[in-house]
Protein backbone atom coordinates (compact mmCIF):
# COMPACT_ATOMS: atom_id res chain seq x y z
CA UNK A 1 0.00 0.00 0.00
CA UNK A 2 2.85 2.37 0.85
CA UNK A 3 4.39 1.77 -2.56
CA UNK A 4 1.17 2.51 -4.41
CA UNK A 5 0.64 5.67 -2.35
CA UNK A 6 4.18 6.80 -3.20
CA UNK A 7 3.49 6.09 -6.88
CA UNK A 8 0.28 8.13 -6.75
CA UNK A 9 2.06 11.02 -5.02
CA UNK A 10 4.93 10.99 -7.54
CA UNK A 11 2.52 10.85 -10.49
CA UNK A 12 0.44 13.72 -9.06
CA UNK A 13 3.52 15.88 -8.47
CA UNK A 14 4.80 15.18 -11.99
CA UNK A 15 1.37 15.93 -13.44
CA UNK A 16 1.23 19.27 -11.61
CA UNK A 17 4.72 20.18 -12.83
CA UNK A 18 3.87 19.04 -16.36
CA UNK A 19 0.65 21.07 -16.38
CA UNK A 20 2.65 24.23 -15.71
CA UNK A 21 5.49 23.52 -18.15
CA UNK A 22 3.80 21.57 -20.94
CA UNK A 23 1.28 24.10 -22.16
CA UNK A 24 2.65 24.65 -25.68
CA UNK A 25 2.70 22.18 -28.56
CA UNK A 26 6.54 21.98 -28.74
CA UNK A 27 6.72 21.40 -24.97
CA UNK A 28 3.90 18.86 -25.00
CA UNK A 29 4.97 16.79 -28.00
CA UNK A 30 8.79 17.14 -28.14
CA UNK A 31 9.70 18.31 -24.61
CA UNK A 32 10.82 21.68 -26.03
CA UNK A 33 13.64 19.87 -27.89
CA UNK A 34 15.96 20.02 -24.92
CA UNK A 35 17.16 16.43 -24.67
CA UNK A 36 20.81 15.45 -24.75
CA UNK A 37 22.21 12.01 -25.54
CA UNK A 38 21.94 10.60 -22.01
CA UNK A 39 18.35 11.62 -21.33
CA UNK A 40 17.11 10.72 -24.81
CA UNK A 41 19.04 7.42 -24.82
CA UNK A 42 17.75 6.28 -21.44
CA UNK A 43 14.22 7.42 -22.28
CA UNK A 44 14.32 5.70 -25.67
CA UNK A 45 15.47 2.44 -24.14
CA UNK A 46 12.86 2.60 -21.37
CA UNK A 47 10.10 3.38 -23.86
CA UNK A 48 11.19 0.54 -26.12
CA UNK A 49 11.30 -2.15 -23.46
CA UNK A 50 8.15 -3.31 -21.73
CA UNK A 51 7.61 -5.48 -18.67
CA UNK A 52 7.84 -8.44 -21.07
CA UNK A 53 11.63 -8.21 -20.71
CA UNK A 54 11.47 -8.91 -16.98
CA UNK A 55 8.88 -11.70 -17.02
CA UNK A 56 8.19 -12.90 -20.56
CA UNK A 57 11.84 -12.88 -21.65
CA UNK A 58 13.17 -15.26 -18.98
CA UNK A 59 10.14 -17.53 -19.38
CA UNK A 60 10.77 -17.56 -23.15
CA UNK A 61 14.32 -18.84 -22.43
CA UNK A 62 12.81 -21.62 -20.31
CA UNK A 63 10.48 -22.52 -23.21
CA UNK A 64 12.58 -21.96 -26.34
CA UNK A 65 16.12 -21.90 -24.93
CA UNK A 66 18.86 -20.39 -27.08
CA UNK A 67 16.37 -19.76 -29.91
CA UNK A 68 14.78 -17.03 -27.77
CA UNK A 69 18.01 -15.03 -27.92
CA UNK A 70 17.45 -14.07 -31.57
CA UNK A 71 15.00 -11.41 -30.37
CA UNK A 72 17.74 -9.62 -28.41
CA UNK A 73 20.75 -10.48 -30.58
CA UNK A 74 20.34 -7.39 -32.74
CA UNK A 75 20.56 -5.14 -29.65
CA UNK A 76 24.22 -4.12 -30.20
CA UNK A 77 23.42 -2.90 -33.71
CA UNK A 78 20.14 -1.08 -33.28
CA UNK A 79 21.35 2.17 -31.69
CA UNK A 80 23.83 2.97 -34.46
CA UNK A 81 21.51 1.55 -37.12
CA UNK A 82 18.72 3.92 -36.10
CA UNK A 83 21.04 6.94 -36.05
CA UNK A 84 22.62 6.14 -39.42
CA UNK A 85 19.44 5.29 -41.27
CA UNK A 86 16.74 7.50 -39.77
CA UNK A 87 18.10 9.58 -36.88
CA UNK A 88 20.38 11.82 -38.92
CA UNK A 89 17.75 12.57 -41.62
CA UNK A 90 15.08 13.17 -38.96
CA UNK A 91 17.24 15.64 -37.02
CA UNK A 92 17.97 17.49 -40.27
CA UNK A 93 14.28 17.60 -41.24
CA UNK A 94 13.38 18.87 -37.76
CA UNK A 95 16.01 21.60 -38.07
CA UNK A 96 14.48 22.78 -41.33
CA UNK A 97 10.77 22.29 -40.66
CA UNK A 98 10.40 22.18 -36.85
CA UNK A 99 8.34 18.98 -37.16
CA UNK A 100 6.68 17.75 -33.95
CA UNK A 101 5.51 14.29 -35.06
CA UNK A 102 6.60 11.43 -37.32
CA UNK A 103 3.70 11.99 -39.79
CA UNK A 104 4.74 15.66 -40.00
CA UNK A 105 8.19 14.46 -41.16
CA UNK A 106 6.50 12.51 -43.94
CA UNK A 107 4.42 15.58 -44.82
CA UNK A 108 7.63 17.61 -45.06
CA UNK A 109 9.14 14.94 -47.32
CA UNK A 110 6.16 14.06 -49.50
CA UNK A 111 3.62 16.81 -48.91
CA UNK A 112 0.54 16.66 -46.67
CA UNK A 113 -2.64 14.68 -47.18
CA UNK A 114 -2.45 10.92 -47.71
CA UNK A 115 1.13 10.21 -46.51
CA UNK A 116 0.55 12.09 -43.26
CA UNK A 117 -2.94 10.66 -42.80
CA UNK A 118 -2.00 7.02 -43.41
CA UNK A 119 1.02 7.28 -41.12
CA UNK A 120 -1.16 8.87 -38.42
CA UNK A 121 -3.74 6.10 -38.74
CA UNK A 122 -1.08 3.39 -38.44
CA UNK A 123 0.44 5.12 -35.42
CA UNK A 124 -2.89 5.72 -33.66
CA UNK A 125 -4.05 2.12 -34.18
CA UNK A 126 -0.67 0.48 -33.51
CA UNK A 127 -0.01 2.60 -30.41
CA UNK A 128 -3.42 1.80 -28.93
CA UNK A 129 -2.88 -1.96 -29.56
CA UNK A 130 0.63 -1.82 -28.06
CA UNK A 131 -0.71 0.15 -25.10
CA UNK A 132 -3.33 -2.56 -24.59
CA UNK A 133 -0.42 -5.03 -24.37
CA UNK A 134 1.04 -3.01 -21.50
CA UNK A 135 -2.30 -2.95 -19.70
CA UNK A 136 -2.88 -6.66 -20.20
CA UNK A 137 0.71 -7.41 -19.18
CA UNK A 138 0.24 -5.43 -15.96
CA UNK A 139 -2.95 -7.40 -15.26
CA UNK A 140 -1.09 -10.70 -15.70
CA UNK A 141 1.85 -9.57 -13.55
CA UNK A 142 -0.39 -8.40 -10.68
CA UNK A 143 -0.97 -11.76 -9.02
CA UNK A 144 2.51 -13.07 -9.97
CA UNK A 145 4.68 -10.28 -8.59
CA UNK A 146 2.51 -8.00 -6.49
CA UNK A 147 0.17 -10.50 -4.84
CA UNK A 148 -2.67 -8.20 -5.88
CA UNK A 149 -5.61 -8.47 -8.30
CA UNK A 150 -4.36 -8.04 -11.86
CA UNK A 151 -6.94 -5.44 -12.86
CA UNK A 152 -5.98 -3.32 -9.84
CA UNK A 153 -2.28 -3.26 -10.78
CA UNK A 154 -3.14 -2.50 -14.42
CA UNK A 155 -5.53 0.28 -13.44
CA UNK A 156 -3.07 1.86 -10.99
CA UNK A 157 -0.20 1.89 -13.52
CA UNK A 158 -2.44 3.20 -16.32
CA UNK A 159 -4.09 5.95 -14.24
CA UNK A 160 -0.71 7.14 -12.92
CA UNK A 161 0.79 7.25 -16.43
CA UNK A 162 -2.24 8.88 -18.05
CA UNK A 163 -2.34 11.56 -15.34
CA UNK A 164 1.15 12.94 -15.90
CA UNK A 165 1.22 12.27 -19.65
CA UNK A 166 -2.11 14.00 -20.20
CA UNK A 167 -1.07 16.96 -18.07
CA UNK A 168 2.46 17.51 -19.32
CA UNK A 169 2.97 15.37 -22.43
CA UNK A 170 6.61 14.59 -23.16
CA UNK A 171 7.71 17.56 -21.03
CA UNK A 172 6.70 15.45 -18.03
CA UNK A 173 7.18 12.09 -19.74
CA UNK A 174 10.80 12.55 -20.85
CA UNK A 175 12.46 12.97 -17.42
CA UNK A 176 10.20 10.27 -16.02
CA UNK A 177 11.20 7.85 -18.80
CA UNK A 178 14.90 8.59 -18.35
CA UNK A 179 14.67 7.92 -14.60
CA UNK A 180 12.61 4.78 -15.25
CA UNK A 181 15.25 3.56 -17.72
CA UNK A 182 18.00 4.00 -15.15
CA UNK A 183 15.95 2.14 -12.52
CA UNK A 184 15.25 -0.70 -14.95
CA UNK A 185 18.95 -1.04 -15.81
CA UNK A 186 20.08 -1.17 -12.18
CA UNK A 187 17.34 -3.64 -11.22
CA UNK A 188 17.96 -5.89 -14.22
CA UNK A 189 21.70 -6.20 -13.59
CA UNK A 190 21.14 -6.86 -9.87
CA UNK A 191 18.54 -9.59 -10.43
CA UNK A 192 20.52 -11.20 -13.26
CA UNK A 193 23.77 -11.36 -11.29
CA UNK A 194 22.02 -12.70 -8.18
CA UNK A 195 20.26 -15.41 -10.20
CA UNK A 196 23.37 -16.59 -12.01
CA UNK A 197 25.35 -16.66 -8.75
CA UNK A 198 22.51 -18.62 -7.12
CA UNK A 199 22.65 -21.10 -10.01
CA UNK A 200 26.38 -21.68 -9.42
CA UNK A 201 27.75 -19.38 -12.12
CA UNK A 202 27.23 -19.24 -15.90
CA UNK A 203 29.24 -22.39 -16.71
CA UNK A 204 27.38 -24.48 -14.15
CA UNK A 205 24.02 -23.12 -15.32
CA UNK A 206 24.72 -23.99 -18.97
CA UNK A 207 26.09 -27.40 -17.95
CA UNK A 208 22.86 -28.15 -16.06
CA UNK A 209 20.75 -27.19 -19.08
CA UNK A 210 22.97 -29.27 -21.39
CA UNK A 211 22.65 -32.29 -19.10
CA UNK A 212 18.91 -32.02 -18.36
CA UNK A 213 17.45 -30.66 -21.59
CA UNK A 214 19.99 -30.31 -24.44
CA UNK A 215 17.21 -29.35 -26.87
CA UNK A 216 17.16 -25.92 -25.20
CA UNK A 217 20.67 -25.32 -26.57
CA UNK A 218 19.43 -25.67 -30.16
CA UNK A 219 19.92 -22.13 -31.53
CA UNK A 220 17.02 -22.42 -33.98
CA UNK A 221 14.28 -23.95 -31.82
CA UNK A 222 11.11 -25.70 -32.97
CA UNK A 223 10.19 -22.89 -35.42
CA UNK A 224 13.31 -23.51 -37.52
CA UNK A 225 16.18 -21.34 -38.71
CA UNK A 226 14.25 -19.08 -41.05
CA UNK A 227 11.74 -18.15 -38.35
CA UNK A 228 14.58 -17.47 -35.89
CA UNK A 229 16.42 -15.23 -38.36
CA UNK A 230 13.08 -13.56 -39.10
CA UNK A 231 12.74 -12.57 -35.44
CA UNK A 232 16.35 -11.32 -35.43
CA UNK A 233 15.75 -9.13 -38.48
CA UNK A 234 12.29 -7.98 -37.33
CA UNK A 235 13.67 -6.70 -34.03
CA UNK A 236 16.78 -5.26 -35.73
CA UNK A 237 15.35 -3.39 -38.72
CA UNK A 238 12.03 -2.87 -36.94
CA UNK A 239 13.62 -0.40 -34.53
CA UNK A 240 13.89 2.05 -37.44
CA UNK A 241 10.10 2.03 -37.75
CA UNK A 242 8.80 2.14 -34.18
CA UNK A 243 7.32 5.62 -33.70
CA UNK A 244 7.97 5.66 -29.95
CA UNK A 245 11.68 5.06 -30.75
CA UNK A 246 11.76 7.59 -33.60
CA UNK A 247 10.03 10.17 -31.41
CA UNK A 248 13.24 10.45 -29.35
CA UNK A 249 15.06 11.93 -32.38
CA UNK A 250 12.48 14.73 -32.43
CA UNK A 251 13.37 15.57 -28.83
CA UNK A 252 17.12 16.08 -29.40
CA UNK A 253 18.50 19.56 -28.86
CA UNK A 254 20.85 19.43 -31.87
CA UNK A 255 22.69 17.18 -34.32
CA UNK A 256 25.71 16.84 -32.02
CA UNK A 257 23.57 14.98 -29.48
CA UNK A 258 23.45 12.08 -31.94
CA UNK A 259 27.14 11.29 -31.50
CA UNK A 260 26.90 9.47 -28.17
CA UNK A 261 23.24 8.48 -28.42
CA UNK A 262 23.94 4.95 -29.73
CA UNK A 263 26.40 4.30 -26.91
CA UNK A 264 23.88 5.34 -24.24
CA UNK A 265 21.08 3.40 -25.94
CA UNK A 266 23.15 0.26 -26.43
CA UNK A 267 24.66 0.18 -22.96
CA UNK A 268 21.32 0.79 -21.22
CA UNK A 269 19.63 -1.72 -23.51
CA UNK A 270 22.27 -4.38 -22.83
CA UNK A 271 22.11 -3.68 -19.08
CA UNK A 272 18.35 -4.23 -19.05
CA UNK A 273 18.59 -7.30 -21.28
CA UNK A 274 20.89 -9.00 -18.77
CA UNK A 275 17.68 -9.93 -16.95
CA UNK A 276 16.57 -11.89 -20.04
CA UNK A 277 19.89 -13.77 -20.12
CA UNK A 278 20.66 -14.01 -16.40
CA UNK A 279 17.24 -14.92 -15.05
CA UNK A 280 16.50 -16.91 -18.21
CA UNK A 281 19.60 -19.11 -18.18
CA UNK A 282 20.14 -19.15 -14.39
CA UNK A 283 16.45 -19.63 -13.60
CA UNK A 284 16.06 -22.38 -16.19
CA UNK A 285 19.07 -24.19 -14.70
CA UNK A 286 17.59 -23.87 -11.22
CA UNK A 287 14.26 -25.19 -12.51
CA UNK A 288 15.78 -28.12 -14.41
CA UNK A 289 18.06 -28.87 -11.46
CA UNK A 290 15.03 -29.22 -9.19
CA UNK A 291 15.61 -26.10 -7.09
CA UNK A 292 12.45 -24.40 -8.43
CA UNK A 293 8.96 -25.68 -9.09
CA UNK A 294 6.98 -24.01 -11.86
CA UNK A 295 3.31 -24.35 -12.72
CA UNK A 296 4.08 -22.68 -16.06
CA UNK A 297 7.17 -21.04 -17.60
CA UNK A 298 5.55 -17.62 -16.94
CA UNK A 299 6.20 -18.25 -13.24
CA UNK A 300 9.98 -18.32 -13.72
CA UNK A 301 10.81 -14.75 -12.61
CA UNK A 302 8.52 -14.78 -9.54
CA UNK A 303 9.84 -18.25 -8.60
CA UNK A 304 13.45 -17.08 -8.93
CA UNK A 305 12.73 -14.02 -6.77
CA UNK A 306 11.12 -16.25 -4.18
CA UNK A 307 14.15 -18.57 -4.20
CA UNK A 308 16.56 -15.64 -3.82
CA UNK A 309 14.76 -14.64 -0.56
CA UNK A 310 15.83 -11.01 -0.87
CA UNK A 311 13.16 -8.38 -0.06
CA UNK A 312 15.39 -5.73 -1.63
CA UNK A 313 15.57 -7.57 -4.96
CA UNK A 314 11.83 -8.24 -4.87
CA UNK A 315 11.10 -4.55 -4.28
CA UNK A 316 13.60 -3.54 -6.97
CA UNK A 317 11.95 -5.88 -9.47
CA UNK A 318 8.47 -4.60 -8.67
CA UNK A 319 9.60 -1.00 -9.13
CA UNK A 320 11.40 -1.89 -12.38
CA UNK A 321 8.37 -3.71 -13.79
CA UNK A 322 6.08 -0.76 -13.00
CA UNK A 323 8.69 1.58 -14.52
CA UNK A 324 8.84 -0.55 -17.68
CA UNK A 325 5.06 -0.50 -18.08
CA UNK A 326 4.75 3.22 -17.42
CA UNK A 327 7.65 4.35 -19.64
CA UNK A 328 6.35 2.48 -22.68
CA UNK A 329 2.78 3.59 -22.01
CA UNK A 330 3.73 7.28 -21.71
CA UNK A 331 5.39 7.46 -25.13
CA UNK A 332 2.59 5.52 -26.80
CA UNK A 333 -0.08 7.75 -25.26
CA UNK A 334 1.75 10.86 -26.48
CA UNK A 335 2.32 9.72 -30.07
CA UNK A 336 -1.27 8.46 -30.37
CA UNK A 337 -2.60 11.79 -29.04
CA UNK A 338 -0.38 13.66 -31.51
CA UNK A 339 -1.59 11.52 -34.40
CA UNK A 340 -5.24 12.11 -33.49
CA UNK A 341 -5.13 15.81 -32.69
CA UNK A 342 -2.42 17.11 -35.05
CA UNK A 343 -1.79 14.76 -37.94
CA UNK A 344 -5.24 13.48 -38.85
CA UNK A 345 -6.77 17.02 -38.87
CA UNK A 346 -3.78 18.30 -40.89
CA UNK A 347 -4.16 15.42 -43.37
CA UNK A 348 -7.82 16.41 -43.81
CA UNK A 349 -6.81 20.01 -44.51
CA UNK A 350 -7.64 21.45 -41.09
CA UNK A 351 -5.21 23.47 -39.03
CA UNK A 352 -4.15 21.75 -35.80
CA UNK A 353 -5.20 23.57 -32.63
CA UNK A 354 -2.55 25.86 -31.21
CA UNK A 355 -3.01 24.73 -27.60
CA UNK A 356 -2.75 21.28 -26.08
CA UNK A 357 -6.24 20.96 -24.57
CA UNK A 358 -7.45 18.54 -27.24
CA UNK A 359 -4.23 16.51 -26.92
CA UNK A 360 -4.81 16.19 -23.16
CA UNK A 361 -8.33 14.89 -23.79
CA UNK A 362 -7.07 12.55 -26.52
CA UNK A 363 -4.43 11.13 -24.15
CA UNK A 364 -7.15 10.20 -21.65
CA UNK A 365 -9.33 8.77 -24.43
CA UNK A 366 -6.49 6.62 -25.83
CA UNK A 367 -5.74 5.31 -22.33
CA UNK A 368 -9.40 4.37 -21.88
CA UNK A 369 -9.55 2.73 -25.32
CA UNK A 370 -6.47 0.65 -24.55
CA UNK A 371 -7.96 -0.47 -21.24
CA UNK A 372 -11.18 -1.54 -22.99
CA UNK A 373 -9.23 -3.34 -25.74
CA UNK A 374 -7.13 -5.17 -23.14
CA UNK A 375 -10.27 -6.21 -21.28
CA UNK A 376 -12.24 -7.49 -24.27
CA UNK A 377 -9.54 -9.08 -26.46
CA UNK A 378 -8.93 -12.79 -26.15
CA UNK A 379 -5.57 -12.67 -27.94
CA UNK A 380 -2.50 -13.64 -25.89
CA UNK A 381 -0.16 -10.83 -24.81
CA UNK A 382 2.73 -11.97 -26.98
CA UNK A 383 0.53 -12.02 -30.08
CA UNK A 384 -0.76 -8.51 -29.38
CA UNK A 385 2.79 -7.26 -28.83
CA UNK A 386 4.22 -8.77 -31.99
CA UNK A 387 1.18 -7.51 -33.91
CA UNK A 388 1.85 -3.91 -32.81
CA UNK A 389 5.60 -4.10 -33.56
CA UNK A 390 4.95 -5.80 -36.91
CA UNK A 391 2.32 -3.23 -37.95
CA UNK A 392 4.69 -0.36 -37.31
CA UNK A 393 7.46 -2.18 -39.18
CA UNK A 394 5.29 -3.02 -42.18
CA UNK A 395 3.79 0.47 -42.42
CA UNK A 396 6.71 2.76 -41.64
CA UNK A 397 9.98 0.93 -42.44
CA UNK A 398 9.94 1.59 -46.23
CA UNK A 399 9.01 5.27 -45.99
CA UNK A 400 11.35 6.00 -43.12
CA UNK A 401 14.47 4.13 -44.27
CA UNK A 402 14.16 4.42 -48.05
CA UNK A 403 11.94 7.49 -48.21
CA UNK A 404 14.18 9.68 -46.08
CA UNK A 405 17.35 8.55 -47.86
CA UNK A 406 16.48 8.15 -51.53
CA UNK A 407 15.55 11.24 -53.50
CA UNK A 408 13.89 9.13 -56.20
CA UNK A 409 11.03 8.02 -53.96
CA UNK A 410 7.77 9.76 -54.77
CA UNK A 411 4.59 10.68 -52.99
CA UNK A 412 2.65 8.05 -54.97
CA UNK A 413 5.15 5.35 -53.99
CA UNK A 414 5.05 6.42 -50.34
CA UNK A 415 1.25 6.27 -50.19
CA UNK A 416 1.33 2.81 -51.78
CA UNK A 417 3.95 1.59 -49.31
CA UNK A 418 1.96 2.93 -46.35
CA UNK A 419 -1.12 1.05 -47.57
CA UNK A 420 0.40 -2.18 -48.96
CA UNK A 421 2.75 -2.91 -46.03
CA UNK A 422 0.22 -3.12 -43.18
CA UNK A 423 -2.42 -4.72 -45.44
CA UNK A 424 -0.01 -7.56 -46.30
CA UNK A 425 1.09 -7.90 -42.68
CA UNK A 426 -2.48 -8.13 -41.35
CA UNK A 427 -3.42 -10.63 -44.08
CA UNK A 428 -0.43 -12.83 -43.17
CA UNK A 429 -1.27 -12.56 -39.45
CA UNK A 430 -4.81 -13.72 -40.24
CA UNK A 431 -3.38 -16.56 -42.36
CA UNK A 432 -1.08 -17.57 -39.54
CA UNK A 433 -3.97 -17.72 -37.07
CA UNK A 434 -5.96 -19.81 -39.54
CA UNK A 435 -2.98 -22.15 -40.01
CA UNK A 436 -2.61 -21.48 -43.72
CA UNK A 437 0.72 -19.60 -43.41
CA UNK A 438 3.82 -21.45 -42.22
CA UNK A 439 6.16 -20.36 -39.40
CA UNK A 440 8.92 -19.38 -41.84
CA UNK A 441 6.85 -16.34 -42.93
CA UNK A 442 7.32 -13.31 -40.70
CA UNK A 443 4.30 -11.04 -41.33
CA UNK A 444 5.83 -7.70 -40.32
CA UNK A 445 8.97 -8.13 -42.41
CA UNK A 446 7.05 -9.52 -45.37
CA UNK A 447 4.73 -6.51 -45.21
CA UNK A 448 7.77 -4.22 -45.14
CA UNK A 449 9.31 -6.10 -48.10
CA UNK A 450 6.13 -5.71 -50.16
CA UNK A 451 5.81 -2.07 -49.08
CA UNK A 452 9.40 -1.52 -50.21
CA UNK A 453 8.61 -3.05 -53.59
CA UNK A 454 5.55 -0.81 -53.89
CA UNK A 455 7.59 2.27 -52.94
CA UNK A 456 10.31 1.58 -55.49
CA UNK A 457 8.13 0.39 -58.36
CA UNK A 458 5.48 3.10 -58.04
CA UNK A 459 8.22 5.71 -57.77
CA UNK A 460 9.14 4.66 -61.30
CA UNK A 461 12.55 3.46 -60.16
CA UNK A 462 13.39 7.06 -59.35
CA UNK A 463 13.03 8.34 -62.89
CA UNK A 464 9.88 10.30 -62.09
CA UNK A 465 10.41 13.63 -60.37
CA UNK A 466 8.83 13.46 -56.97
CA UNK A 467 7.94 17.17 -57.08
CA UNK A 468 5.28 16.26 -59.64
CA UNK A 469 3.50 14.29 -56.97
CA UNK A 470 3.54 16.97 -54.36
CA UNK A 471 0.73 19.48 -54.04
Amino acid at each position, binding site marked *: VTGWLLLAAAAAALAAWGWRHGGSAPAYFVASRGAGAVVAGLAGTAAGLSAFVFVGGPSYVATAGAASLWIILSAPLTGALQCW*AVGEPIVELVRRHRCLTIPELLAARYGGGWPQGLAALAIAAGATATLAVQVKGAAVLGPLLFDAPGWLVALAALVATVSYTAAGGMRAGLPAEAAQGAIMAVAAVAIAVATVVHAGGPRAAVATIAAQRPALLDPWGPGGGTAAIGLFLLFGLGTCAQPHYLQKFLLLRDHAALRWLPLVMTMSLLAILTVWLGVGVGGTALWLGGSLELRSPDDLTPAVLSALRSPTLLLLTMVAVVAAIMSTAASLLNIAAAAITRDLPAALGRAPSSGVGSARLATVAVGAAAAVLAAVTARPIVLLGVLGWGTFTAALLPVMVIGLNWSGSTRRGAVAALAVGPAAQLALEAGRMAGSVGPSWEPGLTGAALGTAALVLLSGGGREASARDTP
Partner: protein
Amino acid sequence: MKTTSSAQLDGINRRAACTARRRLNHNLHPTLDAPPHDRPVKAPLVPVAALALAGLWCLAQAVDAPRLAAAVAVAALAAVSATSVLRRGTRRLRFAVLLPALLLGAGLVGVFAAPAGSAVALAVQLGILIVLAPLVPLLYAASFERPPGDDP
Protein backbone atom coordinates in the same frame (compact mmCIF):
# COMPACT_ATOMS: atom_id res chain seq x y z
CA MET B 1 23.46 46.41 -84.33
CA LYS B 2 21.63 43.32 -83.15
CA THR B 3 18.15 44.01 -81.74
CA THR B 4 15.82 41.86 -79.63
CA SER B 5 12.31 41.34 -80.95
CA SER B 6 9.25 41.58 -78.70
CA ALA B 7 8.65 37.81 -79.12
CA GLN B 8 12.18 37.07 -77.92
CA LEU B 9 11.66 39.44 -74.96
CA ASP B 10 8.44 37.63 -74.07
CA GLY B 11 10.31 34.32 -74.08
CA ILE B 12 13.09 35.67 -71.87
CA ASN B 13 10.54 37.10 -69.43
CA ARG B 14 8.62 33.83 -69.28
CA ARG B 15 11.84 31.86 -68.55
CA ALA B 16 12.85 34.37 -65.86
CA ALA B 17 9.42 34.18 -64.24
CA CYS B 18 9.53 30.38 -64.33
CA THR B 19 12.98 30.34 -62.69
CA ALA B 20 11.82 32.78 -60.01
CA ARG B 21 8.76 30.62 -59.27
CA ARG B 22 10.98 27.50 -58.98
CA ARG B 23 13.35 29.29 -56.60
CA LEU B 24 10.46 30.60 -54.48
CA ASN B 25 8.88 27.14 -54.33
CA HIS B 26 12.21 25.59 -53.34
CA ASN B 27 12.70 28.14 -50.57
CA LEU B 28 9.19 27.53 -49.24
CA HIS B 29 9.37 23.73 -49.50
CA PRO B 30 13.06 22.83 -49.61
CA THR B 31 12.58 19.12 -48.90
CA LEU B 32 9.41 18.30 -50.78
CA ASP B 33 11.46 16.90 -53.60
CA ALA B 34 14.63 15.84 -51.82
CA PRO B 35 15.74 13.93 -48.74
CA PRO B 36 16.97 16.11 -45.89
CA HIS B 37 20.70 16.09 -46.37
CA ASP B 38 23.35 17.78 -48.37
CA ARG B 39 24.10 14.95 -50.79
CA PRO B 40 20.75 13.52 -51.89
CA VAL B 41 21.06 9.84 -52.69
CA LYS B 42 20.28 9.59 -56.38
CA ALA B 43 22.19 6.40 -57.07
CA PRO B 44 20.11 3.67 -58.73
CA LEU B 45 21.85 1.39 -56.24
CA VAL B 46 19.21 2.21 -53.61
CA PRO B 47 16.07 1.03 -55.43
CA VAL B 48 17.92 -1.92 -56.99
CA ALA B 49 19.32 -3.05 -53.63
CA ALA B 50 15.98 -2.52 -51.87
CA LEU B 51 14.08 -4.54 -54.46
CA ALA B 52 16.70 -7.30 -54.50
CA LEU B 53 16.73 -7.64 -50.71
CA ALA B 54 12.92 -7.58 -50.49
CA GLY B 55 12.67 -10.27 -53.18
CA LEU B 56 15.40 -12.46 -51.67
CA TRP B 57 13.81 -12.22 -48.22
CA CYS B 58 10.46 -13.40 -49.58
CA LEU B 59 12.26 -16.20 -51.46
CA ALA B 60 14.10 -17.32 -48.31
CA GLN B 61 10.79 -17.55 -46.46
CA ALA B 62 9.01 -19.29 -49.34
CA VAL B 63 11.61 -22.07 -49.64
CA ASP B 64 12.39 -22.01 -45.88
CA ALA B 65 16.14 -21.50 -46.42
CA PRO B 66 17.79 -20.41 -43.13
CA ARG B 67 21.23 -19.76 -44.66
CA LEU B 68 19.77 -17.54 -47.38
CA ALA B 69 17.65 -15.79 -44.73
CA ALA B 70 20.78 -15.16 -42.62
CA ALA B 71 22.70 -13.81 -45.62
CA VAL B 72 19.81 -11.50 -46.52
CA ALA B 73 19.53 -10.36 -42.90
CA VAL B 74 23.20 -9.38 -42.73
CA ALA B 75 23.00 -7.70 -46.14
CA ALA B 76 19.81 -5.83 -45.17
CA LEU B 77 21.29 -4.53 -41.91
CA ALA B 78 24.45 -3.47 -43.77
CA ALA B 79 22.43 -1.83 -46.55
CA VAL B 80 20.28 0.14 -44.14
CA SER B 81 23.39 1.34 -42.29
CA ALA B 82 25.03 2.13 -45.61
CA THR B 83 22.43 4.78 -46.47
CA SER B 84 24.66 7.04 -44.37
CA VAL B 85 27.68 6.11 -46.50
CA LEU B 86 25.83 7.29 -49.59
CA ARG B 87 25.18 10.63 -47.85
CA ARG B 88 28.68 11.28 -46.52
CA GLY B 89 31.03 8.65 -47.81
CA THR B 90 34.14 9.08 -45.71
CA ARG B 91 36.55 6.18 -45.41
CA ARG B 92 36.04 6.08 -41.65
CA LEU B 93 32.28 5.78 -42.03
CA ARG B 94 32.61 3.01 -44.62
CA PHE B 95 34.80 1.09 -42.21
CA ALA B 96 32.35 1.70 -39.34
CA VAL B 97 29.47 0.29 -41.38
CA LEU B 98 31.37 -2.61 -42.94
CA LEU B 99 33.11 -4.03 -39.86
CA PRO B 100 29.98 -4.85 -37.82
CA ALA B 101 28.39 -6.51 -40.86
CA LEU B 102 31.48 -8.69 -41.38
CA LEU B 103 31.64 -9.64 -37.70
CA LEU B 104 27.91 -10.38 -37.60
CA GLY B 105 28.22 -12.52 -40.73
CA ALA B 106 31.14 -14.42 -39.20
CA GLY B 107 29.13 -14.95 -36.02
CA LEU B 108 26.15 -16.34 -37.93
CA VAL B 109 28.45 -18.68 -39.86
CA GLY B 110 29.72 -19.86 -36.47
CA VAL B 111 26.17 -20.52 -35.22
CA PHE B 112 25.39 -22.55 -38.36
CA ALA B 113 28.64 -24.51 -37.99
CA ALA B 114 28.16 -25.33 -34.29
CA PRO B 115 27.48 -28.99 -33.47
CA ALA B 116 23.82 -29.69 -32.64
CA GLY B 117 23.01 -29.98 -28.94
CA SER B 118 26.30 -28.42 -27.82
CA ALA B 119 26.78 -25.15 -25.98
CA VAL B 120 28.98 -23.81 -28.80
CA ALA B 121 26.10 -22.08 -30.61
CA LEU B 122 25.02 -20.37 -27.37
CA ALA B 123 28.62 -19.25 -26.81
CA VAL B 124 28.76 -17.79 -30.33
CA GLN B 125 25.44 -15.99 -29.78
CA LEU B 126 26.77 -14.48 -26.55
CA GLY B 127 30.02 -13.65 -28.37
CA ILE B 128 28.07 -11.61 -30.94
CA LEU B 129 26.48 -9.63 -28.12
CA ILE B 130 29.71 -9.11 -26.17
CA VAL B 131 31.87 -8.09 -29.15
CA LEU B 132 29.39 -5.90 -31.03
CA ALA B 133 27.78 -4.13 -28.05
CA PRO B 134 30.67 -1.79 -27.27
CA LEU B 135 32.17 -1.83 -30.77
CA VAL B 136 29.27 -0.60 -32.92
CA PRO B 137 28.32 2.51 -30.90
CA LEU B 138 32.00 3.45 -30.57
CA LEU B 139 32.43 3.07 -34.33
CA TYR B 140 29.41 5.34 -34.77
CA ALA B 141 30.90 7.97 -32.46
CA ALA B 142 34.29 7.76 -34.19
CA SER B 143 32.77 8.20 -37.64
CA PHE B 144 30.33 10.92 -36.58
CA GLU B 145 30.35 14.16 -38.53
CA ARG B 146 28.48 17.31 -37.74
CA PRO B 147 26.83 18.64 -40.90
CA PRO B 148 27.74 22.13 -42.09
CA GLY B 149 25.40 24.82 -40.81
CA ASP B 150 24.24 22.81 -37.81
CA ASP B 151 23.41 25.44 -35.24
CA PRO B 152 22.22 24.43 -31.81
